């Protein structure tokens, strides 16, 4: 562990490689986390099925790609399909748990995650999928830093989607309705906002974001039907750290998580990479709880 750390310190070029690859991975986590943040903020549901939606989006993109759809079109295709699936899920399952106890909605979305896992397995098979876009990599500093172009594109797209989402929530009519519903659904309803439709749109939008994240994941990494959970856990962490409705916070938290995780993987060894994520999550929850408790004492 110490020698790994020294290796990084003595070879800053390679340290840059570790951090850069981590940052770019973090962008995809951030993309999935936008959606989770939205659903959590507006519907008050912790969406445990998030990771499975990402994987499903990845498979849809892969299916499109292997049927000859060009790489740049696969992402919108998957995002659109996933919007429809998200919308459908809302009107079949999610609407029943919107006003219910947190425990009920966690159970319901957990159940959905199992169903979607098995469905993707049945439809697409349990094989590992990865689509090589053939874009290659760019390298600098004598090959010490090597980054696949597709990861750079994923990064840019994730940032652009974040920006568009932010603008949409601020300025679009529907975006404003979504924010109003998040603040006070009853008041929004009285003032003529069809909150049911807003909920459906929000969940659909979440589906689309997951579709985008999944398409990028299948082009830059690998997917298989059971890889959803890490995406759920990371989205959850990012949202917990960033707070609800904070698009900028999600970006920062997502990127830092990706970079930290990769550095931890290098220094502690790959076996502790995910363990590190979980430990970090516990620490952050404890810290937030402690801060919240302090704030309450000021109020009373």
């Amino acid at each position, binding site marked *: 562990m110490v020698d*790994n750390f020294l*290796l990084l310190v003595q*070879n800053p070029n*390679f340290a840059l*490689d*570790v951090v850069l*690859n*981590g940052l770019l*991975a973090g962008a995809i986590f951030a993309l999935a986390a936008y959606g989770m943040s939205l659903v959590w903020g507006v519907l008050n549901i912790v969406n445990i099925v998030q990771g499975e939606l990402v994987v499903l989006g990845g498979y849809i993109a892969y299916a499109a790609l292997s049927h000859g759809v060009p790489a740049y079109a696969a992402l919108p295709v998957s995002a659109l399909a996933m919007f429809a699936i998200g919308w459908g899920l809302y009107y079949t399952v999610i609407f029943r748990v919107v006003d219910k106890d947190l425990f009920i909605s966690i159970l319901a979305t957990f159940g959905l995650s199992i169903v979607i896992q*098995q469905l993707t*397995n*049945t439809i697409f*098979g*349990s*094989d*590992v*999928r*990865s689509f*090589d876009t053939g874009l290659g*990599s760019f*390298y600098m500093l004598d*090959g*010490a830093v*090597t*980054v*696949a172009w597709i*990861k750079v594109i994923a990064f840019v797209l994730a940032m652009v989607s974040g920006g568009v989402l932010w603008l949409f929530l601020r300025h679009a009519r529907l975006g404003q309705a979504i924010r109003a519903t998040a603040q006070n659904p009853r008041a929004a309803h009285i003032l003529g906002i069809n909150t049911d439709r807003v909920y459906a749109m929000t969940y659909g939008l979440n589906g689309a974001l997951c579709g985008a994240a999944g398409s990028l*994941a299948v082009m830059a*990494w*690998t*997917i*298989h*039907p*059971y*890889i959803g*959970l*890490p995406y759920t856990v990371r989205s959850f962490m990012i949202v917990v750290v960033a707070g609800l409705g904070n698009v900028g916070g999600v970006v920062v938290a997502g990127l830092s998580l990706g970079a930290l995780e*990769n*550095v931890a*993987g*290098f220094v502690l*060894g*790959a*076996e502790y*990479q*995910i*363990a590190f994520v979980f430990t970090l999550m516990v620490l952050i929850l404890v810290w937030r709880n402690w801060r919240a408790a302090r704030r309450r004492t000021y109020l009373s």
Partner: protein
Amino acid sequence: MSHTGNVVMKKLGLLAFAVCVGWAVSASADEAVSIRLGAAVSLSGKYSSNGVYTRNGYDLAVARINERGGVKVGDKTYKLEVVYYDDESTPARGAQLAERLIQQDGVKFLLGPYSSGLTEAMAPVTEKYGVPMVEANGAAVSLFQKGYKYLFAVLTTTDQYLKGAVEVAAARSADPSKLKVAMAFENDPFSQDVRAGVTADAKRFGMKIVIDDKLPPDLNDMSATLTKVKLLKPDLLIVSGHEKGAATAVRQMADQRVNVPMVAMTHCDSARIAETLGKSAEYVLCAAQWAPSLSYSDDLFGSASDYAALYEKTYNETAPYQAAESSAAVQVFADAFTRAGTLDPKAVRDALATTDIQSFYGPVRIDETGKNAGKPTILFQVQDGKYVVVYPEKWAEAKLRAPIPTWDKR
């Protein structure tokens, strides 16, 4: 209840009775001419593709044996049939189903499930009831260190998988003790078994292990490990993490332009790296149990390539080694039935323990622990988009292409 209702009930009762009697008669008639083998295989869940290969392999061998008239036991000839259940890729379910096959279905002989984990869950059950199990898809060496008396395997155990890679690297070097080895193994019983074999061999040659990462089961990004590889420049990189490990490693080595003179993996053929990842997969060495191009043969299927052709004709896909070994398991059972001359499980078990046959899948010689000690594992290399056997040299189709050229020359 009304009068007519009563009559209807009586008639129904009679009908049910008649059906039961008819069923019992036909069942006993069936029993006289066929041997029922039981199998719990993964038809859903994470092993579903390999589970289907396993079932296909069993079915193909059973069909072939029945076509040829069946199995001769003493002076009678029996057909084979298999009772299947879906174990959903979960060990607990597998153990339950083994219990069910033996207790409720009265099966006296079991074929193995897919994966070491499920075999490990089912073996205590078959052991308890004294039911022989011949398995073809659980290669963990730990299965054969527990003193099981009723568990037999046709495959070579995992600790042998990548020994070949270490040997090849050593043979190509003037001083093997100067070689540096990097290892990335998933943290599961299978891969850790492979690791144990590789570590022992590397130690034997005095090689230095510079990286020894354990990949978590849900990792799909190994860029941190690969950066370390770039930095420490090992002479041999060994990766084992099932299909996802192989696909991820090949993908990211190309993305990060990691230069290593020799790279060896498990599961790269079932991950279809040559088919789906193209040029990135070139030069990679893959450990495998079997290949259609090997010169093994037997009377039932003919040569290994005949088997592959038959499989392809029957199932419209190329024959995976998981299916080949599953077929071999049925052959081993058939051979043991004939040699035992009776269907008493104890006698069949004793016959299985002394199995020594030549099959299209390779020699099967069961040793005292129950595993196949007669067959070497082979190494493929991806050459021009094809998997070509390069090791052991006795069965090699082509020469090893090594060292791997650096990425700027590829």
